[in-house]
């Protein structure tokens, strides 16, 4: 039998090439190309008064200098708003080169094309742009107060205002015996892939054709956008994503200004042009994500069941909204995680600020939603004196309730309906893995050594594999080589391997004979892109369906040749053979020969396929009416809705009692992405996601000052975790197949990072005994919180008071803890009363 491929933890086919320097990234291409560089705005908000390029035109090697005035037609019009939405009433996009006004530091103003990048940057430095500075809006609070406006014609800086409600939240809230309000704050971060963006374009004047390469997550999207902008027939534009050194979301945004300008200039100049983003450009002119302020009001019963959940949040969308409001929509829907509140209302405002635009970053709004929900669960448990895992379990959607329709619309405009999942089983596995029930003893042992430890937990559900579709094409050559093509792109996830595994399994061929191409519009012009943890679900299923078509064709041809029924045939290691009589066989390569009758013989395989070779039926045409030549097949997969993966994480964190240093001692993950194609790759995705989540929880933030300057726009100041800071990830899996697709799979790409900030906050809070409402958190900030807690400004958790009483029953709680309530009788907060676990109460916009 053919070795089992689907589900096997086989090593990645692409790794030998990538780790030995064989990768071909964008900057490895186009060594003969001219180089582009950009003059970018040094101001966060200003009117462009004058551009004086006279000092640059004489720089030797300068080929062209462009400003907005030079951009013809659609090239000079605003960039597209890719994903419109009815509530995005004030969508605004920038120009490829700023027209009249700049709205964030880093916005491109002038493009220089020169013989090389050195010359181009020298010329950029000689271009004088005169600006008239305008009031700057930085930070959600300033955007919300609306005193200064990013766009004059957008009142209150509100791009979108959206409310979704299921059930009667007011009534359910009024009935609930307990209430809490939490004010929460998540800061900005960014994808920061190892390779920044890059574009390289060649214009073929003889054929009036454009070939472009972009370090993108969607070559078909870029192709369509560039064809539209440049007024070219789609057939005259090819777009190829070469090896891409990470994306994490930032490269699904398109077209970037450079993706329009570089091909436009290459065509105009008649020479290849290339632009490769440098690190500073990536920080100040790509995209960020995450920044939200949230207010959660929850009503719950004595058992901790959520009767009413009322969430308001304010989302910083940066200067423009080209990618619509996908991120806050995902926050507002995926916030619910594995839970089923009695009634739910979520209202959000998406606000403009004079900062880099905000588009999805791995997790795409979910880390924020998970933070809100999980902080709420911890607060409910603490208020009632209940176990945190138990409160979660009491709110779970149960397996027998699947499919579960929340009654909300998800990011794809379709119902938020969970297809499968076994949350109680996941929680049981997680508790066993981390030693949940033994943690009191673990804590006591640590405390005896003078150490502070805490246990945190976070659960999430992730909608993966959103439509509309992806396709797969498979062609078997006469050599037996199997060419597989899908249109979505790869940024290092291991697509070459998992798609090959699917084909090897479905077709019965050897893995090494399968060759996968992604992201090349010449090979597969119909595709959407790689985002939303969708590649395995969408292209995986499309490729499986295509493989089944090819298999059926191969069996049909082989059955004719062997004069048996197709039902009696099997394919093993690339050979079609009769079941039970394996010597009666024919190789797939030979089947490919037979599938394509030839007139000309140019090699041995072709000779076997000529019209005079072998036997043929003179009464039938060489290619049947209902058939096509060639052993190939194509199919598409287009699901009715997303499939929902889930996971639960727990961490044990130690906080230094003196320095407030935060160390993750253990990090445990239970992950359920349905049937796994390759568990090793799934684990790698989870590990990488957790690492990125740890970055978001403890290190990464975009530090804008009041004038809109990004203070940490380099890897010297923007901290990312090294291997030394990322904990060993202890992962275990549950495989609850998706009933929605042929392979039963769900996406796994973003999972690891979603709950990390929630989990780490939960663990720090547990260690410290006071609420953590703002992430990321640094040792300095934790130390400051300790001071404020000691001074009575920050309340204690109920359980911390309880533990203190338990340890020293003769002592009353410290008066400075500011919580008069006895922990034995849980405190509740009146609906209009003061917040219980809240940070500072914030104004809501009128």
């Amino acid at each position, binding site marked *: 039998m053919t070795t089992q491929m689907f589900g096997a933890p086989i090593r990645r086919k692409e790794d030998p090439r990538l780790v030995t320097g064989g990768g071909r990234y964008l900057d490895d291409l186009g060594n003969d190309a001219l180089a582009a560089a950009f003059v970018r705005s040094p101001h966060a908000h200003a009117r462009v008064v004058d551009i004086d390029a006279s000092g640059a035109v004489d720089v030797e090697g300068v080929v062209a200098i462009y400003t907005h005035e030079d951009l013809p037609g659609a090239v000079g019009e605003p960039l597209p708003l890719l994903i419109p939405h009815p509530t995005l009433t004030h969508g605004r996009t920038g120009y490829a080169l700023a027209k009249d006004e700049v709205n964030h530091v880093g916005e491109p103003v002038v493009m220089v094309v020169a013989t090389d990048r050195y010359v181009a*940057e020298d010329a950029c*430095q000689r271009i004088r742009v005169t600006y008239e500075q305008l009031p700057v809006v930085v930070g959600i609070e300033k955007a919300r107060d609306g005193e200064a406006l990013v766009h004059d014609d957008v009142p209150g800086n509100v791009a979108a205002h959206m409310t979704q409600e299921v059930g009667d939240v007011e009534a359910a809230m009024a009935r609930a015996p307990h209430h809490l309000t939490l004010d929460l704050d998540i800061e900005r971060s960014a994808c920061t892939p190892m390779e920044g963006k890059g574009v390289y374009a060649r214009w073929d004047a003889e054929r009036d054709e454009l070939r472009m390469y972009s370090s993108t997550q969607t070559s078909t999207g870029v192709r369509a956008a560039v064809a539209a902008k440049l007024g070219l027939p789609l057939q005259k534009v090819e777009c190829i994503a070469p090896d891409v050194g990470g994306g994490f979301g930032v490269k699904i945004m398109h077209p970037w200004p450079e993706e329009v300008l570089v091909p436009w200039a290459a065509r105009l100049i008649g020479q290849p042009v290339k632009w490769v983003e440098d690190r500073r450009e990536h920080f100040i002119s790509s995209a960020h994500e995450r920044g939200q302020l949230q207010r959660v009001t929850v009503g719950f019963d004595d058992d901790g069941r959520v009767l009413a959940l009322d969430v308001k949040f304010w989302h910083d969308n940066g200067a423009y909204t080209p990618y619509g409001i996908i991120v806050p929509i995902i926050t507002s829907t995926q916030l619910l995680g594995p839970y089923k509140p009695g009634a739910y209302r979520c209202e959000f405002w998406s606000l403009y600020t004079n900062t880099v635009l905000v588009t999805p970053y791995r997790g795409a709004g979910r880390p924020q939603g998970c933070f809100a929900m999980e902080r709420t669960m911890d607060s409910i448990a603490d208020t009632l004196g209940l176990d945190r895992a138990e409160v979660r379990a009491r709110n779970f959607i149960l397996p027998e309730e699947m499919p579960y329709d929340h009654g909300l619309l998800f990011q794809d405009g379709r119902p938020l309906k969970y297809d499968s999942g076994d949350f109680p089983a996941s929680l049981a596995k997680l508790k066993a893995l981390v030693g949940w029930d033994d943690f009191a003893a673990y804590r006591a042992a640590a405390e005896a050594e003078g150490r502070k430890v805490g246990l945190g937990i976070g659960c999430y559900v992730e909608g993966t594999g959103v439509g509309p579709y992806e396709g797969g094409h498979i062609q078997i050559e006469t050599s037996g080589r199997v060419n597989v093509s899908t249109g979505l792109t790869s940024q290092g996830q291991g697509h070459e391997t998992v798609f090959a595994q699917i084909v090897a399994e479905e077709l019965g061929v050897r893995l090494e004979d399968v060759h996968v191409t992604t992201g090349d519009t010449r090979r597969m012009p119909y595709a959407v892109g790689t985002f939303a943890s969708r590649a395995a679900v969408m292209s995986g299923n499309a490729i499986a369906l295509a493989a089944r078509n090819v298999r059926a064709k191969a069996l049909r041809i082989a059955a004719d040749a062997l004069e048996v029924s197709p039902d009696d045939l099997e394919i093993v290691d690339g050979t079609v053979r009769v079941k039970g009589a394996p010597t009666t066989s024919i190789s797939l390569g030979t089947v490919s020969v037979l599938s394509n009758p030839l007139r000309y013989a140019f090699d041995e395989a072709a000779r076997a396929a000529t019209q005079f070779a072998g036997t043929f039926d003179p009464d039938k045409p060489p290619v049947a009416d209902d058939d096509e030549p060639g052993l190939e097949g194509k199919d598409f997969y287009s699901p009715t809705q997303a499939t929902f993966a889930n996971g639960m994480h727990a961490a044990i964190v130690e906080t230094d009692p003196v*320095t407030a240093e935060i160390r993750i001692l253990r990090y445990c993950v239970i992950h359920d992405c349905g049937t796994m194609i390759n568990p090793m790759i799934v684990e790698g995705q989870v590990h990488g996601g957790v690492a990125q989540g740890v970055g978001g929880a403890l290190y990464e933030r975009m530090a804008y000052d009041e004038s809109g300057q990004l203070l*940490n726009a380099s890897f010297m100041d923007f*901290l*990312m975790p090294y291997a030394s800071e990322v904990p060993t990830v202890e992962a275990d899996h549950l495989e609850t197949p998706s009933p929605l697709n042929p392979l039963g799979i769900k996406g796994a790409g973003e999972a690891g990072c979603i709950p990390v900030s929630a989990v780490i906050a939960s663990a720090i809070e547990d260690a410290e005994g006071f609420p953590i409402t703002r992430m990321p958190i640094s*040792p300095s900030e934790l*130390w400051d919180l300790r001071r404020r807690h000691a001074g009575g400004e920050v309340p204690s958790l109920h359980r911390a008071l309880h533990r203190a009483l338990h340890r020293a029953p003769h002592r009353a709680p410290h008066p400075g803890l500011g919580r008069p309530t006895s922990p034995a009788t849980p405190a509740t907060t009146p609906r209009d009363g003061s917040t219980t676990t809240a940070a500072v109460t914030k104004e809501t916009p009128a």
Partner: protein
Amino acid sequence: MIPASFDYVAPTTVDEALAALAEHGDDAKVLAGGQSLLPILRMRLNAPGVVVDLGRIPDLQGVCDDGDHIVIGAMTTYAAVLADDLVSTHASLLSKAVATVADPQIRHRGTLGGALVHADPAGDVGAPVLALGAELVVAGPGGQTRTVTADDFFEDLFTTAVGEGELLTQIRIPKHTGWGAHYEKFVRVSHQWSIVAVAATVRSEGGTIAEARVGLTNMGSTPLRAVSVENALVGQPATDEAIRAAVASVADGTNPPSDLNGDSDYRRHLATVLTRRAVLAAAGA
């Protein structure tokens, strides 16, 4: 992130280097290890007309024994300092501090002298050089040399006693043979610049501190030496309690920065904690 155009000079002797500096004046920048200069050039924060590379001057490299002192050439890389037995035997505080600098790649390019003259207060070599009472040999126009004590060397943020047209050539460190040493560094991620760090070296006699030297990293615009703490430590038993009391005031009078990694109050708090830890470790307690 590409430097503006500059001329490149690579002298092979100190005299040639000094001549190049004399010729180009403040239009010249000295390239030692390049770990700070190159980012500055790439971000076009500075655009010198001439870069004078000291990397091909053999006289500036290596460590030698000079009686009561060890002498380290200014262009000796961190990696070479770290691997050197003379340093680890007679100035182990410096070895321990250098071991915490960034990552192996940077330690193989960056130089001790380059870091000292760059004088970033968050750099890790200023405090140990200060604590060890080093003398810094500076060569000037015409080749005459002068010696500056470490106490007088660091003048301000990114400013040292090395003037225009001068080069730091040698770091002379009095032997601290048999002294215990520890560099206690606080960072959030492993390869980060010090948020605060403390360099301590201690000579103990029978469980009592006979002499102590303490330097502070990133607690002001220059590395600082905590002389009052050093004095308070003398004669103390090497116990947690005694050391805690002796170092309690280490942050008094300091003016550390507030930045993304911590405010100045937090840094003052850290300095006290780290000093205690460093001295305890250096005293072998």
